[in-house]
């Protein structure tokens, strides 16, 4: 297993290199640059800006510099400065040497922030929202799917699957404003917008206070965001459970005289979880990063919008940072899935 994890981490580096190269190439290939303005900037100004951000270097050098700044650990004896060009995600003092790693560069758009600032301030919120949404998706989706499967072709099944279809077909962009309107504006039960946690975060990503105040803000967006996923999980759970209960070993369990309850809980559920676990990895990555619309509707200061606005702004470091983040996230999420796999299914062993 350890060997497998090491291999996956090395694989991650390959992913980063490939993804960064493709992104870098595409980003510079599309027309329009970070300094395109409605009111065109004078050539001299653009030159100044390009010099500042080293955009006047040859592309290969820009790429190599970028990879050097992001991937290669730096060691220095001087303390980190406040410069935006000198912001590393990892700063550790070992003896009197500073170990510094992952400098994603300054944002072009937010002139006093770096990509790392965005990771530090906004990513935790997206992670919190994504986690809550995933919990919602699982808490709603799995019981619904199990219920529908066990009561196949009964009103329970139709109800569950009806809810699931609704969840898939009503997107956040429709559901969100309805939630805001009903629970935020009309009933005033919950705040229409905002997020109940702000920096600094516990361990860098957890809300420092996990109280009612946090959940008051989190409930609506988590449900709005998680409902679509819960529908997917419900349908998948139903399908796999229905398939599992037709397996030979379920028949064997019945032939042994096992009680129905035991058959479902002990024999069927764990097996039917395996495909569900498979989609949880990419789903979590999508829930954390693909939250642009949810953030917009619920006014959540998360990371999702940077995936969209960085591209319209041609904010190169943010584009690179967000896309690499997504790639890393996806690989790590899938690694976790693999580990859970190995736990759920003894036939799977990695080495």
């Amino acid at each position, binding site marked *: 297993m350890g*060997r497998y994890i*090491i*291999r996956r981490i*090395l694989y991650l580096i390959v992913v980063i290199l490939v993804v960064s190269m493709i992104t870098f190439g595409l980003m510079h290939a599309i027309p329009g640059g970070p300094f395109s303005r409605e009111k065109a900037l004078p050539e001299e100004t653009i030159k100044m800006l390009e010099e500042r951000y080293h955009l006047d270097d040859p592309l290969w050098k820009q790429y190599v510099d970028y990879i050097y700044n992001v991937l290669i650990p730096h060691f220095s004896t001087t303390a980190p400065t406040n410069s935006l060009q000198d912001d590393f995600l990892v700063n550790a003092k070992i003896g009197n040497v500073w170990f510094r790693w992952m400098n994603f560069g300054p944002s072009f758009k937010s002139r006093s922030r770096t990509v790392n600032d965005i990771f530090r301030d906004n990513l935790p919120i997206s992670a919190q929202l994504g986690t809550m949404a995933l919990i919602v998706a699982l808490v709603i989706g799995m019981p619904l799917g199990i219920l529908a499967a066990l009561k196949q072709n009964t009103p329970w099944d139709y109800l569950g699957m009806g809810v699931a279809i609704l969840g898939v077909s009503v997107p956040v962009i429709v559901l969100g404003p309805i939630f805001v309107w009903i629970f935020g504006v009309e009933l005033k039960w919950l705040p229409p917008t905002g997020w109940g946690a702000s920096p600094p975060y516990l361990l860098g990503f957890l809300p420092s206070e996990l109280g009612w105040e946090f959940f008051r803000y989190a409930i609506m967006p988590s449900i709005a965001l998680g409902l679509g996923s819960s529908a997917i999980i419900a349908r998948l759970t139903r399908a796999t459970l229905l398939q599992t209960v037709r397996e030979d070993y379920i028949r064997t369990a019945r032939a042994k005289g096992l009680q129905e309850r035991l058959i479902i809980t002990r024999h069927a559920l764990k097996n039917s979880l395996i495909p569900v676990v498979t989609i949880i990895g990419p789903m979590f990555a999508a829930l954390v990063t693909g939250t642009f619309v949810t953030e917009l509707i619920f006014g959540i200061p998360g990371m999702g919008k940077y995936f969209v606005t960085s591209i319209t702004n041609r904010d190169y470091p943010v584009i690179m940072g967000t896309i690499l983040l997504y790639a890393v996230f996806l690989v790590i999420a899938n690694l976790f899935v693999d580990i859970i796999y190995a736990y759920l299914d003894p036939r799977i062993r990695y*080495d």
Partner: protein
Amino acid sequence: MTNDNVLLRVEDLVKHFPINQGIIIQRQVGAVHAVDGISFDIHRSETLGLVGESGCGKSTTGRTILQLYRPTSGHVYFDEIDLVNLKGNDLRKMRRRMQMIFQDPYASLNPRMTVGEIIGEPLVVHTISHGKAIERRVAELLELVGLNPAFANRYPHEFSGGQRQRIGVARALALQPDLIVCDEPISALDVSIQAQVVNLLEDLQKQFGLTYLFIAHDLSMVRHISNRVAVMYLGIIVELAEQNELYDNPYHPYTQALLSAVPIPDPSVEDRRRRIILEGDVPSPVNPPSGCRFRTRCKFAKEICSVEKPEWREIQPDHFVACHFAGELG
């Protein structure tokens, strides 16, 4: 010794599947010794039966002969041409003369192609015929294997297992091959259908002078269809003889055990039979036992069996066996 009558000669054929491991650079840490040095030949218009239990390497042998797997070492002479050294077009030309029928008639037919397309495909690939000529040939082949030529436009799922196997036979016959490797062609079929397919194969052999390598685990059926039979165990052939000779005078203890294990559909016979029950399972082909492969399950095994590889010897005219004590055992 050259024999004009030999169509296929296999010499010291070895096929190992490497087992790789490593974090970035994969290095080979072992190999599955699927086929570990076998030699035999097949005469024209003959059926050679190749029997053995699952995992013994009999299917790999068939595929390696057809160069679907490239052998690790050894030679496969087809009409005195060594297939192992052939590449590209030359190999393609030779492949036309060798076809295969697979075990699973469900999995081996592309579900999105019509039966006509499946049977006609080899003709198109090898640019044998075009357009109408293909249609005519497909109809002819369907008729030959006992299917209605009008079925050419149907899809595999519309057929039963036996019919699908007939389609597989028709596809194999399309290029008028000399050799057909039948890889467990009947084991997925119902009892009453098995006989249909076997009879068809026999009829076709008579009609076209086909040569078969018939791979199966069903010893009764192998005995029925084969002229000579080779018994495989863990990557090697342990015994090879003319069918009646092998069944009447098995020399190798494994052959003896195998034959005794086959039930005979006759209670009066069954009552009188003495079974040789082998202990345990077949060892792993990754680490095959030293010396004689069978020694771990052989009740006659002696010191020498673990030390020395038994010689492949002709114990009777045209009866070969690989056992140190063949002929000395009760």
